[in-house]
């Protein structure tokens, strides 16, 4: 349809063709954008390798689900819906916006496929989208500006508030929506006047609103609005494009890519350096992330992609108890540091005199900040664009270990692990002392496996369950279950070393390798064809990080299977207590085992179980951390365990069932310190089941 208004590409202003602007604005805009992106990509080129092109099928699925499907967003309902509206709107509007740019120098241009009926439907859809986006932007501005939710607050030590930037971008988007619609509305009004209008006008859209309010405007006025709205849109569009890579809205460009390239092998820690095998580690000059380019390129892309939404920190237990760690600011501080080190104009002085190669620890990160992480994974479970934190924390710890910057409280257990294979410095031969306790030994025999004494199943006990007076009860309960299910099993005894799950996560890679190698040797000598453990930390590393050993499973999985095969039968619960299951991080979030323990509990006849609804499964709240974390002395206001016990109490439970010895330590302690002894108790799943074996 011929427009009655002069299109921007043909218009003149005081005798000057506006086509020049229609051409210049995109050229300048695109050139500037390419330049900025080049500057942004530079640090990625200097960063460490990272392999992210495997398992394409799984990547596409993740992309569809978490990226296009925005699956993580509804976890925070208000912000989530607003984001989904704007995101979908952008996808729809992108096409029209590109078309509009070309209209600036080719009058009446329509992208192939956008003419005719399809085009009409698309325009209608686009109008709805623009309206919803504008609406969402207004709500977001009100919410962000007037009711600022707590998680957006920036603590003083992390710099200035980010509200201004957020609101500014919302205004820009609104302007785009308004000008887009006005540019659309002006010719429609002219057509209406002449009675030629064939466009579909959806009532309630901004276009509809403009048509309704401007229907009596003169042709001259409409012509002006038509051109003004076009060029404002053109200018703002390219301004926005170039503005995106300057701050938290970079995620508009990098977000989907970041999701496609995300980490797929949960539960394992990245190698010290991608492409370097364990045997070659000795040749590496340096370990871990000391300077910014020691991060992998993907980790730098993570920093760029952080939208500053604060969901990670909102769920971070360390942040909650006021440890000096907020995952959000790990990303934001690193991003700002990169922007500073790689400025858009000129060269950074720091880089020239090599100051930019200084340790990040002590510069933008603090030692305690990095040691405060329990590696629970709550932040990663929450991030809508799958930013990784644990690998970065571990890489920073590796650097500290390499430089000797390890708190004294951790040096002793690390030394003992090196010498004795357990963090307590206990004698190796006492690792299996628990099997010889009189009452237990009379009831249940436990073999110690070796090349001479074999069994089908190896029970990997790990350090705390072997040595701690309280935790050996878990080992004994586990043995009783295996015994009752008539499974031929045994333990490694003094040949077993600490599994090293936390040793690795605390950055002592070489010690982890030694422990792992010794365990692998002992496991293969045992002749076992399957492994079971009652410790999710051991389970995690055996399953995800040990190579060439039989399949490892957690006792909860084994219990469930035995129940289903009727090899175990359970007696009814008679105490009348209310139970709640606490998901250990290394069983749940890191290995997706949420249902087996619940089903096992529910298999006890007439047991009453409740849920900590908002804090269960992948939203579980960490008990305080396991392994070496028990030795670390963080600054904190309260303990995570205390909060967790409170959650259980609020859920109406008297008994917290967990499936991890470290959770047991922390929760048991928290019950005592909260003065809830007698009111609340904690029991391990294995103990609960063993108590109910018929």
């Amino acid at each position: 349809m011929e427009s009655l208004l002069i299109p921007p590409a043909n218009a003149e202003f005081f005798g000057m063709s506006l086509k020049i602007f229609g051409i210049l604005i995109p050229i300048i805009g695109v050139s500037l954008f390419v330049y900025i992106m080049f500057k942004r990509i530079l640090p990625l080129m200097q960063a460490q390798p990272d392999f992210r092109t495997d398992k394409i099928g799984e990547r596409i699925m993740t992309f569809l689900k978490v990226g296009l499907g925005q699956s993580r967003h509804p976890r925070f309902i208000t912000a989530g819906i607003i984001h989904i509206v704007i995101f979908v709107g952008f996808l729809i509007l992108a096409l029209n916006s590109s078309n509009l740019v070309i209209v600036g120098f080719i009058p009446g241009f329509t992208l192939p496929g956008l003419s005719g009926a399809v085009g009409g439907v698309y325009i209608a859809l686009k109008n709805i989208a623009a309206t919803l986006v504008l609406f969402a932007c207004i709500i977001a501005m009100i919410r962000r500006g007037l009711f600022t939710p707590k998680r957006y607050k920036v603590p003083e030590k992390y710099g200035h508030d980010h509200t201004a930037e957020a609101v500014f971008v919302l205004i820009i988007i609104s302007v785009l929506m308004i000008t887009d619609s006005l540019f659309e509305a002006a010719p429609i009004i002219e057509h209406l006047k002449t009675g030629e209008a064939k466009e579909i006008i959806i009532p309630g859209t901004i276009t509809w609103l403009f048509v309704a309010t401007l229907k009596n405007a003169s042709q001259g006025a409409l012509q002006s609005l038509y051109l003004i709205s076009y060029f404002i849109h053109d200018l703002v569009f390219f301004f926005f494009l170039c503005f995106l890579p300057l701050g938290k809205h970079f995620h508009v460009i990098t977000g989907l890519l970041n999701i496609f390239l995300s980490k797929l092998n949960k539960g394992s820690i990245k190698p010290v350096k991608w492409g370097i095998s364990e045997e070659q580690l000795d040749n590496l000059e340096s370990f871990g992330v000391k300077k910014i380019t020691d991060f992998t390129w993907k980790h730098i892309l993570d920093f760029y992609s952080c939208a500053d939404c604060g969901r990670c920190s909102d769920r971070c237990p360390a942040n909650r108890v006021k440890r000096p760690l907020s995952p959000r600011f790990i990303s934001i501080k690193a991003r700002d540091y990169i922007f500073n080190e790689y400025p858009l104009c000129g060269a950074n002085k720091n880089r020239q005199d090599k100051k930019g190669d200084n340790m990040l620890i002590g510069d933008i990160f603090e030692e305690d900040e990095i040691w405060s992480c329990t590696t629970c994974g709550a932040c990663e479970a929450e991030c809508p664009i799958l930013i990784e934190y644990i690998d970065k924390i571990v890489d920073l710890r590796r650097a500290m270990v390499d430089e000797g910057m390890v708190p004294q409280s951790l040096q002793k257990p690390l030394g003992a692990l090196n010498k004795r294979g357990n963090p307590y410095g206990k004698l190796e031969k006492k690792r299996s002392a628990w099997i010889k306790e009189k009452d237990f030994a009379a009831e249940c025999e436990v073999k110690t496996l070796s090349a001479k004494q074999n069994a089908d199943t190896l029970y990997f006990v790990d350090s705390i369950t072997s040595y701690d007076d309280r935790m050996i009860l878990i080992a004994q309960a586990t043995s009783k279950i295996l015994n009752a299910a008539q499974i031929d099993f045994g333990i490694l005894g003094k040949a077993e070393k600490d599994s090293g799950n936390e040793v690795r996560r605390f950055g002592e890679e070489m010690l982890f390798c030694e422990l792992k190698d010794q365990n692998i040797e002992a496991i293969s000598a045992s002749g076992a064809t399957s492994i079971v453990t009652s410790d999710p930390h051991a389970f995690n590393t055996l399953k995800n990080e040990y190579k060439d050993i039989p399949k490892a499973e957690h006792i909860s999985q084994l219990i469930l299977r035995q129940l289903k095969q009727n090899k175990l039968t359970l007696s009814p619960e008679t105490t009348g207590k209310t139970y709640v299951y606490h998901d250990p991080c290394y069983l749940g979030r890191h290995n997706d085992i949420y249902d087996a323990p619940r089903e096992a509990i529910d298999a006890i006849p007439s047991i009453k179980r409740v849920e900590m609804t908002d804090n269960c499964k992948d939203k579980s709240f960490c008990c305080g951390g396991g392994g070496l974390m028990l030795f670390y002395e963080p600054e904190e206001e309260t303990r995570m365990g205390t909060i967790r016990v409170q959650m259980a109490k609020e859920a109406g439970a008297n008994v917290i069932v967990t499936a991890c010895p470290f959770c047991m330590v922390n929760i048991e302690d928290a019950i005592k310190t909260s003065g809830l002894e007698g009111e609340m108790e904690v029991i391990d799943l294995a103990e609960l089941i063993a108590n109910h074996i018929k």
Partner: protein
Amino acid sequence: MEILVCVKRAPDTLENEITVNKDGTNIEQEDLVYSVNEWDNYAVEEAIQIRDKVGGSVTVVTVGDEDAEEVLRREMAMGADNGILISDKAFENSDGKGIASILKAEIEKGKYDLILTGAQADDGAGQIGGMLAAMLDLPYASLVNKIDSEDGKLTIGREIEGGAQEINEIELPCVLSIQTGINEPRYVGIRGIRKVASIEIPVRTASDLGLDTNAVGDAGAKVKKLDYFIPETGDGAEMLTGSQEEIADKLIELLKAKGGMK
């Protein structure tokens, strides 16, 4: 500043269960694991920090068998520049004076501005530093928990009773024995030790040092360990019974006897 630190390989009580062997001649050697003596480790860290501030070098030296080399490597991984192993059959069973005279012979071959030792060891007598200083005719301070260096002399803090700190000025060269807590020793992992694994560590024997083998080792020792035994302790608590008053009286007597009352 050229700094020498005397270190020793010893079983750490945190990592071992110390018991006496069957015939009471020594502690049970089975299952023992060894480390660098904790106090010595603080001394090495202090030496490294001083060197990093004022320049110079740090040398670690130990008297022991070939296994003692591992503690030298560990301290070199920490940052010490050189290691010297003094090892000779003739040195076995030396008393404190014997060890000090062996170290003295080595020290006189070099030129050191500052000599550090640990204040004590779990299996020692806290004597080497003081003896060495006297043999070398150098000023000495023990239990040092702070060192400030300024031209030609040091200002040092000594840890004395009641948590107080005694500040002294001491001329260089001197010998100091270092108390734990003076610093926070850096961590040394397996990787650090592997990095220095191939560095040659010179071994000195009695003849290298020109020592008379009759003056050191068992032959020269005037102080000898005769045997080891476990100080008497009961098994499990002795439960006090009676009225509160009676129990309190019994307890007071026990506390008096055990030094639990001032």
